[in-house]
């Protein structure tokens, strides 16, 4: 007999205090070690960088709007795509996902905070500092040579372009340090998430009963240790090359530029999965709630996630088919890359099976999830095309590749992040996000996304290389680039709707109550917003859907789970 506390007991809490002086509010946020506040700061900081990175993307599209355009100089264009890529991966993707993880993981496992709250704060502030450092390069990178401003070496910074000779000034150093520090912060937060998951679960929350979101964050965090660390090591080597005259990537002294490519992509490809696993995590939580069914195939989902974690470590060199690795190397990485579509396919089928026969409610979070399903499928299909080495030889470093990975990063990850915003916003603020504005955001962004990235595949197949700053007329690329640019405008307006919605709903949104979606995981047992200590008494769980058990004591899940 295990006593389960009733919901009223779990959330028996004090009213939050309001109306403090602004200085003490700022002091509270800067010194906080509360996982919810740190999570929100992560998200806010990522949203600011999302807007900056978005503006950079818009400038790139304006430059490519018509042939022979001189809106920006080639130098500035190189800086724009470098900053856009670095910002979006390290200062939008990672922090926004870590922000959600920080906020949700302790709540979902019935804990009162992360395992190491001060390390948590440290990781956030070091990441925030890294972002500032990257953008400070616009002012501080000139150095003694008066060359450079922002980094312009591309987001994967291939050697030997990063050598002191080819990149004088300090712009590359700002890039290196920013990426290095962001890596330190990521490893710290990942360490915290793993430890929290393993050591802070409430009574009865066995590994077998953890929400899938927590499982995916566990796999993602383990992946961070083995994926982000190699990048950290490579950045140390690059700094030694640039500052004390080491020769790691110095071809003049026998060093190898290809070694940098390997080290970068040993990080770079698992990083894609580091970003996409939390997106899967959001979809895993949202799809069942809006289909009014338990998730289909929980053990298969866990196994597929762990499988993706392992396989993703052996696919990195599919970014390097054009380097000339030889037949054996190419064949291995072709097969490894194709194999990873098996566990991802299992996930897609399980989501479909969850929706199948459910009472589907098309609220805004679910709309974004359904779009995610379609777009992730297409992103996976172009991924399989590119994984075939001969196909890749044709289209490597073309706009086809750019379209493919934006389908993953925007069409899948960003759509899942938007779904997560609409789904958990009521928990965080106590108010619902506006449904009307949400639908405007969804449709504008969906149309914009497809105009931009569906049509971006075409100039790639017509031979347009990525990263060129302009192109001649008459190559058949003009119309496609024009459509891509028009799509970008739709996306920008959609994004503005979303940002406006975030602010408007905070003041004007409908009161949400504890559990507006009638959901089943523990975070919905707390008031909205949850108090600093989360749970007044520690919850006890008996199944994967503890709130279902509380709401339906006559037919609890624990009767069915082995």
């Amino acid at each position, binding site marked *: 007999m*295990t006593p389960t506390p009733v919901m009223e007991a779990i959330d028996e809490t004090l009213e939050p205090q309001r109306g403090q002086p602004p200085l003490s509010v700022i002091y509270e946020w800067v010194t906080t070690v509360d996982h919810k506040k740190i999570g929100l700061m992560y998200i806010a900081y990522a949203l600011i960088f999302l807007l900056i990175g978005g503006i950079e993307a818009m400038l790139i599209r304006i430059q490519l709007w018509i042939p022979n355009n001189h809106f920006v100089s080639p130098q500035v264009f190189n800086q724009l795509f470098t900053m856009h890529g670095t910002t979006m991966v390290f200062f939008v993707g990672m922090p926004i996902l870590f922000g959600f993880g920080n906020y949700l993981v302790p709540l979902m496992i019935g804990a009162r905070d992360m395992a190491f709250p001060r390390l948590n704060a440290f990781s956030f502030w070091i990441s925030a500092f890294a972002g500032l450092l990257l953008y400070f390069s616009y002012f501080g990178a000139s150095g003694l040579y008066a060359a450079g401003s922002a980094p312009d070496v591309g987001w994967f910074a291939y050697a030997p372009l990063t050598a002191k000779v080819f990149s004088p000034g300090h712009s590359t150093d700002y890039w290196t340090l920013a990426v290095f520090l962001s890596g330190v912060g990521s490893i710290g937060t990942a360490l915290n998430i793993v430890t929290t998951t393993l050591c802070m*679960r409430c009574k*009865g929350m066995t590994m077998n009963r953890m929400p899938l979101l927590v499982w995916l964050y566990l796999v993602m965090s383990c992946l961070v240790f083995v994926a982000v*660390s190699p990048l950290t090591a490579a950045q140390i080597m690059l700094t*030694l090359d640039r500052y004390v005259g080491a020769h790691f990537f110095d071809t003049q002294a026998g060093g190898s530029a290809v070694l940098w490519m390997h080290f970068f992509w040993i990080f770079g490809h698992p990083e894609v999965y580091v970003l996409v696993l939390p997106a899967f995590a959001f979809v895993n939580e949202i799809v069942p709630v809006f289909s009014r069914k338990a998730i289909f195939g929980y053990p298969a989902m866990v196994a597929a996630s762990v499988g993706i974690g392992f396989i993703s470590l052996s696919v990195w060199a599919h970014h390097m088919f054009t380097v000339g690795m030889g037949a054996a190397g190419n064949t291995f990485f072709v097969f490894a890359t194709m194999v990873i579509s098996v566990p991802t396919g299992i996930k897609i089928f399980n989501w479909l099976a969850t929706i199948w026969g459910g009472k589907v409610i098309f609220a805004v979070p679910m709309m974004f999830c359904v779009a995610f399903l379609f777009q992730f499928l297409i992103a996976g299909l172009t991924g399989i095309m590119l994984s075939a080495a001969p196909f890749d030889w044709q289209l490597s470093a073309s706009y086809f590749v750019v379209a493919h990975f934006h389908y993953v990063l925007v069409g899948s990850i960003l759509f899942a992040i938007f779904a997560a915003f609409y789904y958990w916003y009521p928990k965080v603020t106590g108010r619902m996000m506006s449904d009307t504005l949400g639908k405007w955001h969804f449709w504008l962004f969906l149309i914009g996304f497809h105009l931009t990235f569906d049509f971006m595949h075409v100039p790639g197949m017509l031979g347009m290389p990525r990263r060129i700053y302009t192109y001649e007329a008459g190559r058949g690329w003009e119309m496609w680039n024009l459509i891509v640019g028009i799509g970008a405008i739709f996306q920008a307006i959609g994004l503005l709707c979303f940002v406006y919605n975030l602010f408007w709903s905070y003041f004007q949104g409908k009161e949400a109550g504890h559990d507006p979606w009638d959901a089943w995981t523990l975070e919905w047992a707390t008031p909205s917003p949850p108090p600093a200590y989360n749970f007044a008494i520690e919850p006890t769980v008996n199944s994967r859907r503890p709130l279902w058990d509380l709401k339906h004591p006559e037919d609890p899940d624990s009767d069915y789970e082995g």
Partner: protein
Amino acid sequence: MSTIPIEGPIETPWKLPHRGTVGMACLILAEAAIFIIFVVAYIFYIGKSLSGPTPAQVLELPIFGTICLLSSSITVHFAVSALRKENLRNCTINLAATVLLGSIFLLTTAREWYHLIHDEGLTIQTNLFGTTYYSLVGLHATHVVVGLIMLSIAFALSLEGLVKEEHAEKLEVLSLYWHFVDAVWVVVFLVVYVLGK
């Protein structure tokens, strides 16, 4: 407070792993990945230097330093088990021995570097061997320094009589880090002084 009783299987007592141990295991995993990259770079560049000196010409087996460092793993283990048995005096003595042995190792590395730089003229700029050797051994030495600082703090606290039996878990976490640093040295020794020569 009312409760709803729910029928269920008889639960085993709810026991979760110690968070310090798990956290340190994660850190060790991340650090191991960093070291692997440096080791891979070292192995990749063996014999690829365009100019001398080569490892065979200048490197000598650091037997004495290695024995000291590996022994310090044993003494730190004794320190933890002494603390578990509430034998505080023994714990302090073993911590002192650990710090001493670690420092001797660091001194042998310093002597080796002095010899290489001063007598053989090998610096990080000389060739690929210098680049990979100093960065790999230097990265390890940095970890030894960090470990020694933490062990010295533990030693100072135990001299003050502030280390008690309830801190055994924390000292064990520190000892895990120290064992890791020693294990890395075994790899560095094999790669640099055996395979690389």
